[in-house]
Structure formats: structure tokens, C-alpha cells
């Protein structure tokens, strides 16, 4: 009897397990179909074993044409420039090679010829430590791309429009201050200088906001090129000497005997160095010195910008590279957005480098840019 009861209860429990399994399969199927994003499951060879309607719609394909086919063969994937991605660089292939999830933005070319931007995440399906397939989830990001484009355009136009009136102010006051239209009294000079400097602050704010907006929009792509850093720094210093004279600041450049030629985005590095020179100018007392020092060995290239200015207190150092951080010091009325260093650090991070600071209150500050002498990647 006991035996029979056992049989019955086992059968019942088998049934419960089977029904639970069926239920969970059904739930998984429903989830797969209704998640609202394209979803594809492949086996360990990359052949499609399951695909949902959204995926078919995005790719402009029919189910019968894709099931059990090798995934990279059913649709062409392209990069931003319209170049076809080699099969080995397709996200799905990468996952099988590395065993790690891949997130990418690519373009699909539909059979109709239409190009669709998509964001794709592919993860390996692992069993006992080995991939037995992959799942790809993806979505059409046409609207997102359009929004980004509109935002970039807005930033570009807005900054241009904000700079234009400030430029007119700068030129007209500049003409008077620089003696193009006759002599002025000391009192007039002092007042116009105040107006000129205030306008300069406004220009700096626009420049900083623009730089940060660009950095934030994921558009911060580096254009790495082989650059003569010795020449670049000499050129920047030459441009700054005129401004530095206004505060009787001496600007020295210490360069190694041989030209330093490295791979970097010269425009971005120039912006960072200029930002550091602007800061050194702002936070230096009259008649002091600022020194740019360049050094380079096989692995690291260093650009240091050191001043003999007001310095930064130790407690403030950690805040320095944060967004909108402003630090109180004797010259902090000099103004600024608190964005310059945040953004400078981001640019250096992008170069796989480091931006460091050494400072002593009342003695001076040195910013050190450390860059890899050889960039791991080149555009």
C-alpha cells in the first residue's frame, strides 16, 4: 500500500514539475515575444534558433528566411561610415570569441537597401563554463540618433550665437584699450578694463559649457594623429605671452633637447593646456612665473604646468576635478564655471592618461598631464 501511495504521489509530483516547466517555458516565450525589443537566440554555431517579431521587423526579414541560418549571413552590418563590418567583428562573433557580453552601436542594411541604426547587446548563454549559444537584444535607435544630432546642432549654434555679441564687445573695447582710437585717461582705462575682463569671463563660460556639453553627448571622439608636442607647446606659449604680460607674468617653456613626437588629439590636448594656462594666469599674483615642462620616455609623456600662485588647500584637492566645483581662495573672485578642470580630466582620461595636481597653499600649483607615449589605438 505504502508503495502504491508513493507511486501515486511521485506521479503527481512529476506532473506538477512538468506543468511548472511548461508554465515557465510559456512565460519565457511570452517574454521573448513581448519585450518590445528585437531578440534573437542562436546555438553554439551562431545559427538562429529563435527570433521574435520585433527583430524581424527591424531587419525587414521573414521568419522562414532566417531560422536555422548562420546569423551574420542573414543581414549586412555596417559601421558609422557605411563600411561593412567583417564577419569576425560582428557582435555575435565577438561574443563567441571572447565569451563576454558585447554592447555596440551598428547599422543594419535591410534587404530593401535601407540603413537602420541599432543598439545591440549580445550575451553568451553559458553552460558549465562554455558558451552553448548567444542571445542578442537590439533596438532601432533612429530617433535617438536624430535627437543627438539636433542637440549637437543646437549646442553648436547656441554657442556661436552667444559668442558673437561678446566678440563685438571685445573688439570695440579692445580697440580703445589697445590704443587704436587715441589716448584715454587712467580712470577710463580702469573702467574699460573691468568691462573687458567681465566680457572675457562670459566668453570663458560659453567655451566651458560648450566643451562639457560636447563631452557629455558621448561625442567625445579623439582624432589621434602624430603630433610634434614640442612645436605645439612652443606655439601655445607664444600665443599666451601677450596675455601674460598684462600681469607681468613670465612664461617659461622647458623642453627636452630632442623634439617629442607622440600620437594624440592635438586639438584636445591644446585645449587642456590652454585651460591650465588660463587657470595659472587667474590664480597667480603679479610678477611671478609660470613654467610649462615637457618630458618624455618610452612609455610616458608628461606636460607639467606649474605656477607660483595662491595654491590650493589640501582639503580642496579632491574636489578639484568635480563638475561645477569652485574652491574658495584669495583670487576666486576671478570667476569661472567650475567646469574647466572637470572637462580637462575627461579629455586626458580619453587619451588613457592621467591629470594630476600638486599644490601648496600660498606656494603654487602644478598640474601634470601624463599621456601614454604610444596610444593603444589610432583613428
Amino acid at each position, binding site marked *: 500500500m505504502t508503495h502504491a501511495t508513493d507511486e501515486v504521489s511521485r506521479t503527481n509530483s512529476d506532473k506538477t514539475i512538468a506543468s511548472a516547466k511548461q508554465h515557465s517555458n510559456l512565460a519565457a516565450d511570452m517574454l521573448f515575444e513581448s519585450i518590445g525589443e528585437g531578440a534573437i537566440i542562436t546555438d553554439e554555431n551562431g545559427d538562429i534558433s529563435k527570433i521574435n517579431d520585433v527583430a524581424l521587423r527591424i531587419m525587414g526579414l521573414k521568419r522562414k528566411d532566417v531560422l536555422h541560418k548562420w546569423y551574420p549571413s542573414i543581414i549586412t552590418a555596417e559601421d558609422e561610415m557605411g563600411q561593412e563590418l567583417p564577419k569576425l567583428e560582428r557582435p555575435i562573433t565577438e561574443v563567441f570569441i571572447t565569451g563576454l557580453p558585447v554592447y555596440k552601436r551598428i547599422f543594419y542594411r535591410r534587404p530593401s537597401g535601407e540603413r537602420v541604426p541599432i543598439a545591440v547587446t549580445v550575451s553568451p548563454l553559458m553552460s558549465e563554463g562554455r558558451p552553448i549559444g548567444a542571445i542578442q537584444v537590439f533596438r532601432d535607435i533612429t530617433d535617438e540618433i536624430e535627437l543627438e544630432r539636433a542637440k549637437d546642432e543646437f549646442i*553648436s549654434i547656441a554657442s556661436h550665437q552667444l*559668442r558673437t555679441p561678446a566678440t*563685438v564687445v*571685445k*573688439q570695440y573695447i*579692445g580697440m580703445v584699450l589697445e590704443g*587704436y*582710437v587715441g589716448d584715454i585717461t587712467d580712470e577710463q582705462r580702469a573702467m574699460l578694463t573691468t568691462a573687458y575682463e567681465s566680457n572675457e569671463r562670459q*566668453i570663458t563660460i560659453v567655451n566651458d559649457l560648450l566643451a562639457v556639453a560636447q563631452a557629455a553627448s558621448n561625442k567625445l*571622439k579623439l582624432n589621434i594623429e602624430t603630433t610634434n608636442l614640442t612645436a605645439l607647446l612652443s606655439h601655445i606659449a607664444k600665443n599666451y605671452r601677450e596675455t601674460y604680460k598684462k600681469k607681468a607674468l613670465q612664461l617659461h617653456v622647458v623642453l627636452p633637447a630632442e623634439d617629442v613626437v607622440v600620437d594624440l588629439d592635438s586639438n584636445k590636448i591644446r585645449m587642456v593646456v590652454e585651460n591650465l594656462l588660463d587657470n595659472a594666469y587667474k590664480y597667480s599674483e603679479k610678477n611671478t612665473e609660470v613654467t610649462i615642462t615637457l618630458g618624455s620616455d618610452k612609455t610616458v609623456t608628461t606636460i607639467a604646468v606649474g605656477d607660483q600662485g595662491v595654491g590650493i588647500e589640501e582639503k580642496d584637492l579632491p574636489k578639484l576635478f568635480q563638475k561645477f566645483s569652485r574652491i574658495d581662495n584669495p583670487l576666486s573672485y576671478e570667476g569661472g564655471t567650475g567646469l574647466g578642470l572637470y572637462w580637462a580630466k575627461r579629455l586626458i582620461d580619453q587619451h588613457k592618461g592621467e591629470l594630476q595636481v600638486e599644490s601648496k597653499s600660498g606656494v603654487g600649483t602644478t598640474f601634470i598631464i601624463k599621456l601614454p607615449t604610444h596610444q593603444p589605438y589610432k583613428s
Partner: protein
Amino acid sequence: MSTHLLLVEDDPLLRKAFTTVFTKENFTVTTAENGKEALDFLRSTQKLPDVIILDLLMPVMSGLEFLQLYRAETALQNIKILILSNLSDEKTIQTLKKYKNETYTLKSNVSPRQLVSAVRAIL
């Protein structure tokens, strides 16, 4: 003999300011309000300017359109160009890199005297 400057700028206030400054610095200044006017001048003049200050965002013909057409004309290749614009977006900067002989200066970053130095530096 004074240096001949062609100033291509659509903003009348800036055109006036730069004309004043460069005239005082003993340049001969010719002005154009857009790329088309500049190109018309260059094609018809007997004596080409030594240097061009070129704005980018202008009606009728932009600075970039001007550069494209201008570069196709071999007679004009020796004129130095200083691009002076308040556009500084990545796309513009990258496009300008194609034109290797041009110097780009951000308009809001130079005082009148600095602008004169920048022009003298490329001459």
C-alpha cells in the same frame, strides 16, 4: 608697400572694427560680406590680396563653400588664409583639417592686437 587684406565677414560691426584696426596697422583692406562677394572680387581683381580673413557662418556663401570653390582655382593658391570664426564644433574643425594651408582662430579668443599678430604670423 602695404599688405593687402581681404576681409570676408558678414557682421557689419565686426567688419567695421577689423577694417579700423588693420587700416591703422597700415594694411590695405578690401571687404566682402560673404564667400560669393569674396570670390567675385578675387576673380575680377588685377591685384590679388596677400592674405584673407575668412568668417565661416555667412549668408549666400559660407566660408566652407568658399574654401571648396577657391581651392579649385590654381591662380589663388598662394594667398594665405586665416579662418576667423566663432564656430568651434568638432565637425567644423575636422572639415577644416582638409584645408591644410589655413589657420583657424576662434574669433572670441583674440583681441584686436592679437588678431593683427595672428595675421602677421602667417604672412
